């Protein structure tokens, strides 16, 4: 697997990079982890705060069952061990965005144990370039509030709307060795979370962010000291952090220095990481079991129901598209990466009586024509102006020979603009494909009469001119002639 052998070239030779990620994923829920306040994004400041979230004296946390269910479903989706006994602990630190003075988290007994995520480094052929990345654990915890520093010259503003929203912290093993692998891991994790429905994966709104652990070592040597860069909120930044940190550590060691285990911050404007000095002693979190909460004990039935509620997941779906529907490895990978795309594609197939028969054509059409159009319009497939039923109608017209593939492209453009159905457009614009041999033969005769010189050249062996005759015939028939019939008749007539 040469493409994954990522190395930093130092003065003393090559260095290997070791990467582990802690991804914080906001659990999709209506209300917060321990209070009944709303989790909706973008509300007026401090309007979605209960007395529990504001840590008023005497308030007690009550656990949101849905958050537990979503964490368990996520664990099952990555084949992880589900811990029937888990517990909540207090992680103590002072910061202006944390009114409790502690975060309720799960240090000693997380709800989910070891699992695994299959990543691929080549979306064109995932099976040939796969790697298994271990997940150490998933635990449930509270998010903190939000600080704004640019609203006032001497004050910071605090909004507690996000305070107490449920997060899953998904901790990987240090199994990644390149920025590309780290990005592939986050992409796959995001895809799984979205299939499961436990997190919307929206990185712009902060629903997913990563703490990036990086260390360097001589290939195959002892693990080096790692640094942790906090709260990195895009795929691109995650890769930038790894590149920067790996190079910085190599330079530091080769200059005779030592890497300090510390928390760092990424500055996207300068594309560098720097030490968060204020958090130097913050590692001393003085964890202890939260006395307000009993241990969380799960029944077998609960776990069974969680399992039963899981949809077909990306890896299974991709295998089925390839093996049962006969799609290319590339199409199967592209169509299953996002749950919405797969659902759209399946709705399209469902309209047909023989899904297997049209699957490949439909897959090619979705990945080229539809994706092209959506890209141009800048909308996601969930907001596609053309519905799966409308697409099925269009592809049906091609399949039964009513219109050619070329005309289908024109019809599709009109569908995008007008919202009309394919049949209606074809009828109104008179785009029905001409398959009548008599009519086509007549046009071919005209074309040959007008180009006698070229006919002679062709017959003298200039085979390339065949395309010219096809083009002229199609042009004379405004592209409506059935290309297969045109080819057949031309071969016959030209001899």
């Amino acid at each position, binding site marked *: 697997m040469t493409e994954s052998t990522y190395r930093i070239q130092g003065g003393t030779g090559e260095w290997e990079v070791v990467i582990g990620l802690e991804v914080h994923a906001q659990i999709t*829920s*209506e*209300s917060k982890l321990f*209070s*009944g*306040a*709303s989790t909706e994004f973008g509300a*007026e*400041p*401090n*309007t*979605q*705060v*209960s*007395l*529990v979230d*504001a840590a008023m004296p005497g308030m007690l946390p*009550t*656990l*949101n*069952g*849905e*958050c*537990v269910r979503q964490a368990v479903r996520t664990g099952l989706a990555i084949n992880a061990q589900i811990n029937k006994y888990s517990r909540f602990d207090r992680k*103590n630190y*002072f*910061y*202006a965005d944390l009114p409790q003075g502690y975060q309720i988290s799960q240090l000693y007994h997380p709800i989910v144990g070891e699992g695994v995520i299959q990543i691929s480094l080549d979306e064109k052929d995932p099976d040939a370039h796969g790697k298994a990345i271990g997940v150490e654990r998933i635990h449930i915890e509270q998010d903190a509030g939000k*600080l*704004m*520093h640019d*609203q*006032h010259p*001497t*004050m*910071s*503003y*605090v*909004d*507690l709307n996000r305070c107490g929203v449920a997060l899953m912290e998904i901790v990987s093993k240090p199994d990644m060795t390149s920025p590309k692998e780290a990005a592939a891991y986050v992409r796959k994790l995001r895809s799984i979370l979205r299939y499961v429905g436990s997190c919307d994966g929206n990185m712009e709104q902060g629903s997913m962010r990563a703490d990036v652990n990086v260390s360097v070592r001589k290939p195959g040597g002892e693990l080096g000291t790692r640094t942790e860069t906090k709260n990195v909120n895009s795929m691109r930044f995650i890769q930038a952090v790894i590149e920067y940190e790996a190079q910085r550590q190599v330079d530091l060691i080769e200059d005779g220095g030592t890497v300090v285990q510390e928390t760092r*911050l990424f500055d996207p404007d300068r594309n560098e990481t720097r030490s*968060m000095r*204020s958090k130097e*002693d913050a590692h*001393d979190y*003085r964890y202890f079991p939260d006395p307000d*909460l*009993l*241990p*969380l*004990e799960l029944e077998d039935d609960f776990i069974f129901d969680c399992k039963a509620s899981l949809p077909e997941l990306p890896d299974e779906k991709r295998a089925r598209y390839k093996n049962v529907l006969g799609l290319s490895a590339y199409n199967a990978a592209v169509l299953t990466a996002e749950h919405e795309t797969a659902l759209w594609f399946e709705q399209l197939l469902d309209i047909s009586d023989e899904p297997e028969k049209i699957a490949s054509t439909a897959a090619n059409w979705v990945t080229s024509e539809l994706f092209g159009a959506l890209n141009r319009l800048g909308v996601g497939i969930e907001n596609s102006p053309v519905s799966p039923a409308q697409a099925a109608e269009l592809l049906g017209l091609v399949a039964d020979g009513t219109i050619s593939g070329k005309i289908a492209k024109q019809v599709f453009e009109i569908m995008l603009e007008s919202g009309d159905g394919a049949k209606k457009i074809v009828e109104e614009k008179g785009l029905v494909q001409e398959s009548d041999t008599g009519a086509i033969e007549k046009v071919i005769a005209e074309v040959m009469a007008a180009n006698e010189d070229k006919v002679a050249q062709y017959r003298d062996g200039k085979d390339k001119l065949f395309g010219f005759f096809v083009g002229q015939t199609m042009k004379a028939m405004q592209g409506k002639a059935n290309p297969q019939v045109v080819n057949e008749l031309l071969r016959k007539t030209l001899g």
Partner: protein
Amino acid sequence: MSIDKETVKKIASLSRIAITEAEADAFVPELNQILGWVEQLGEVDTSKVEPMTAVIPNQLRLREDVVTDGEIRDKILANAPIAEHGFFAVPKVIE
């Protein structure tokens, strides 16, 4: 286990409690005495005893995921020393 003056000062600082040198000196024997009492519990062999989390058989109850709270900004901000434009306003904290 015993703690020294440095540890006392560190715990105080982590807890954001201001103490004087004299108080730190006084806390060292006091805290060590408390720790000593607690350590006496270690003399009992509890290796075969399940940890007890409640005095009566009790289970953590799960809440339905519905919005039942919030929209009480005035109450939330009522005790804030300074609140502006619906935010708590605190001395600038920036990395």
